[in-house]
């Protein structure tokens, strides 16, 4: 659809991250929405300013300088909507990930059913589950009351009971929640999100509405074995907004600029990935990953189903010590291409956590950050994979076939070479079959997600304008063979009729030098019953592919990527792999 047929509206998206606040400007050019400019400034949510608007102003001021368009005046503040002389902007939307995670207590009947569902719901936002209460915990009412008054969570998520299922047991826990809320001051009372047995909703209102901030969402487990988190996610996002409004200075002003179009960055990422999955092949699915300073976010969508997971304290800045807490130092250093003393690695990680916006000035520091990013992504992926397999599979511990993967985050976009960006995504995600790795080089994914609610045409047209950088098509067969064994024959047919073939051996990383944007047809013939995503082990097939900035990459290193017990061998191998990628850069 041509945008001249609809009322065109310019848009600024503001993404308030833990270290950087980014402002992006979109407008109509030649009848279509385009991404036009990006600017950033340090986030000012923390000390000494405690007010996100200062960082936002600075980012918007830089956007003014870049675009030579006035967006705000000293007298009037933000100029919304735009004026006839092209000043200001018509619409603003904002996303946010800055701030400490909201503290959550999950409540359910059984640990491995309703509590798991409640945890999955909590993981769709920047939340830290600080305690859980269930029938399995053997706590008395008195102990539950003391636990809740001591922990003082921002939010209690209550799940449990299929519709028309158990209710009495849940009500006894609810009594403890009500009493503990009553004991707290008004300002300290938690939000309560009830997502359990729908027959108990009235009881909840009767018992909790007057003494807490009660929210009711549809049951996240309406029938056993069928988790349905999405409707409750919207309610959770409203709670996130309210908690941020209370805890972070300047949010009220941002809400007034955006007329309430404010959401968590993770939620916006989930929304745009869902949007993209409908545009691409809905069956195959799309995944977006955001490796942030404090958190890593994975959002996947296929056939209309969304999986969103936020991993707070797992990042490459403020959350870098979280990577150290979630893995051994060896699991981080195994990604390095050369030896760096363990003490230096540990000290650098702690310093990076203390100064999250600082940049690596030397190459060994950069390599530590890249290793951190790979390990953070690996942890997040391994925890998310079980939720991604919708059907039984022989490779349940591996990444299912998904295309494309889109990566965002400063560690990816700031990396000096595209080979480094690609290696972070390739090693962290370890995709299987034939797929594409793309880079959200301007950090526009969350903004597009937030904009899709109010202007879906903008989201569609900006995505269609090749806004993501294709890093490369990946072919990753899975199976078992000794390193050096031929496992795949590839015939590449170019559009001009030229062809060439390659035999690929197990344990290697090979690049087919296909130019960025060049379309080719590939005939893949796996050997030794390797599965290359053509319908099963040993099956051959044709697939169309497009060259990325690093061509087409054939990754036969194995899934999961094997490591040697000898660290020297790992460093040497990593060095060889990155040099292979750099050769084509």
């Amino acid at each position: 659809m041509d945008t001249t047929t609809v009322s065109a509206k310019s848009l600024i998206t503001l993404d308030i991250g833990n270290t950087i606040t980014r402002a992006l400007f979109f407008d109509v050019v030649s009848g279509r929405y385009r991404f036009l400019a990006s600017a950033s400034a340090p986030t000012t949510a923390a000390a000494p300013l405690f007010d996100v608007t200062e960082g936002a102003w600075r980012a918007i001021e830089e956007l003014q300088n870049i675009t030579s368009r006035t967006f705000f005046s000293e007298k009037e503040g933000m100029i919304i909507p735009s004026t006839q002389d092209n000043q200001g902007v018509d619409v603003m939307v904002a996303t946010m990930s800055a701030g400490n995670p909201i503290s959550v207590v999950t409540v359910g009947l059984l640990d491995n059913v309703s509590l798991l569902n409640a945890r999955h719901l909590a993981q769709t936002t920047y939340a830290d589950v600080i305690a859980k209460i269930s029938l399995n915990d053997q706590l008395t009412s008195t102990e539950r009351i003391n636990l809740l008054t001591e922990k003082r969570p921002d939010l209690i998520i209550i799940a449990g009971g299929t519709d028309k299922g158990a209710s009495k047991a849940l009500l006894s826990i609810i009594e403890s929640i009500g009493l503990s809320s009553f004991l707290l001051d008004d300002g300290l009372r938690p939000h309560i999100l009830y997502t359990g047995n729908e027959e108990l909703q009235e009881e909840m209102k009767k018992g909790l509405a007057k003494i807490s901030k009660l929210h009711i969402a549809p049951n996240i487990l309406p029938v056993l074995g069928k988790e349905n988190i999405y409707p409750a996610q919207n309610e959770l996002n409203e709670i996130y907004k309210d908690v941020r409004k209370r805890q972070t200075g300047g949010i009220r002003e941002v809400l007034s600029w955006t007329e309430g179009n404010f959401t968590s960055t993770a939620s916006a990422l989930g929304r745009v990935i869902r949007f993209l999955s409908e545009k691409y092949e809905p069956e195959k699915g799309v995944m977006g990953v955001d490796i942030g300073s404090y958190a890593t976010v994975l959002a996947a969508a296929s056939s209309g189903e969304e999986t969103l997971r936020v991993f707070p304290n797992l990042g490459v800045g403020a959350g870098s010590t979280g990577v150290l807490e979630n893995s051994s130092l060896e699991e981080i250093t195994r990604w390095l291409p050369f030896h760096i003393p363990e003490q230096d690695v540990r000290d650098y990680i702690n310093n990076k956590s203390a100064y999250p916006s600082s940049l690596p000035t030397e190459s060994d520091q950069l390599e530590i950050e890249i290793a951190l990013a790979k390990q953070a992504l690996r942890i997040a992926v391994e925890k998310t994979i079980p939720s991604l397999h919708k059907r039984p599979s022989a490779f349940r511990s591996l990444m299912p076939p998904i295309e494309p993967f889109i990566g965002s985050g400063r560690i990816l976009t700031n990396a000096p070479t595209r080979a480094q960006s690609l290696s972070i995504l390739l090693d962290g995600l370890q995709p299987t079959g034939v797929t594409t790795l793309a880079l959200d080089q301007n950090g526009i994914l969350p903004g597009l997600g937030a904009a899709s609610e109010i202007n879906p045409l903008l989201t569609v047209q900006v995505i269609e304008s090749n806004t993501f950088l294709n890093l490369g098509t990946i072919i990753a067969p899975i199976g078992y063979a000794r390193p050096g064994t031929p496992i795949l024959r590839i015939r590449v047919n170019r559009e001009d009729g030229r062809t060439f073939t390659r035999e690929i051996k197990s344990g290697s990383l090979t690049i087919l030098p296909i130019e960025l944007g060049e379309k080719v047809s590939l005939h893949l013939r796996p050997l030794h019953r390797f599965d290359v995503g053509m319908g099963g082990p040993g099956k051959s097939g044709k697939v169309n592919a497009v060259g990325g900035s690093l061509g087409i990459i054939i990754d036969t290193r194995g899934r999961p990527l094997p490591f040697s017990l000898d660290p020297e061998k790992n460093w040497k191998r990593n060095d060889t792999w990155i040099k292979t990628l750099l050769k084509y850069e």
Partner: protein
Amino acid sequence: MPIEGHVIVRRMQKVTPTDVIVVAPLNPKYILLEIAHGLNVTSARADELLQRRAGDELAKGDIIAGPVGLFQRVIRAPHSGLVRIVGEGKVLFEISSPLFELQAGMEGTITNIIPERGAIIETRGALIQGVWGNGNITYGVMQPVSNNLNQELLAEQINIGFRGAILAAGYCSNPNVLEIAATIPIKGLVLGSISSDVLPTAKSMNYPILVIDGFGTKPMNTAAEEILVANKDRNVALNAQVYDPFSGKYPEIIISQPNQPEPNLPIESEPLTSGKRVIIVNGSQSPQIGTIDLIHSRKKILSSGIKARAAEVTYGNEKRATIPLSNVEILKE
């Protein structure tokens, strides 16, 4: 205070570090008494048998409900405390606990009262903020181990003369040193940096440990060193709280100097410009203090290969380096 308490200071009152500002039951404990179950009656009957209302203060053994039945069964208060909620056959009872006393922690003047929560204390002096604290707080006499805080704190430097003092030293890379300091015992420790391997021991020490610049084996930055050496033998408030920038919690040292003239308030937000005195954070030049000679108008390529806005900074003995702007902080003097 995170909960309601009783503020016992008044506006414009001068306070010393040990003066109590507010008292409150910081972590009250509760008991849910099942009256109906205990008396073996219905909930409605139990409510009729209640002798207490919400708000009643009870001593241990006081009757809450009853008597009922042949044996005149009663429910008594298991501890001294306060009845918080009654009804539906139950009583929620708050157990009396010793009140937490929040001390001023510094010399100063109360400039504002926060009703039922605390007060704002204003003081003149020096403030040094760090990046890591082990969660403990103290107040005492500060003694640098030497006039030169660029060296490692060694076991042989810690002697009985430091008993009860807050020590200041360059860096620590040996956990045994912290344990020896605990046996003296010292009252607190301020370090320029700390080796990451020593953190588990530092966390377990019951005296406050504050790290100013970061992690590794680097000397203390010279600006902090100058202040600490110049204030040798003075009382300092050492709050080694855990670093949380979003709630404004920095581990910090306050050295009150009430007789000094009132200084100008620092500017909250100022841009980096040529001539500004800065501290280099993170990276091989940290924690050097230098001056910005020039801010490049275009992004520079760093040795790491990253392109970033950067400045030329002169530090130390006329050394010069290109430092990304994100790696410098303006030094407030």
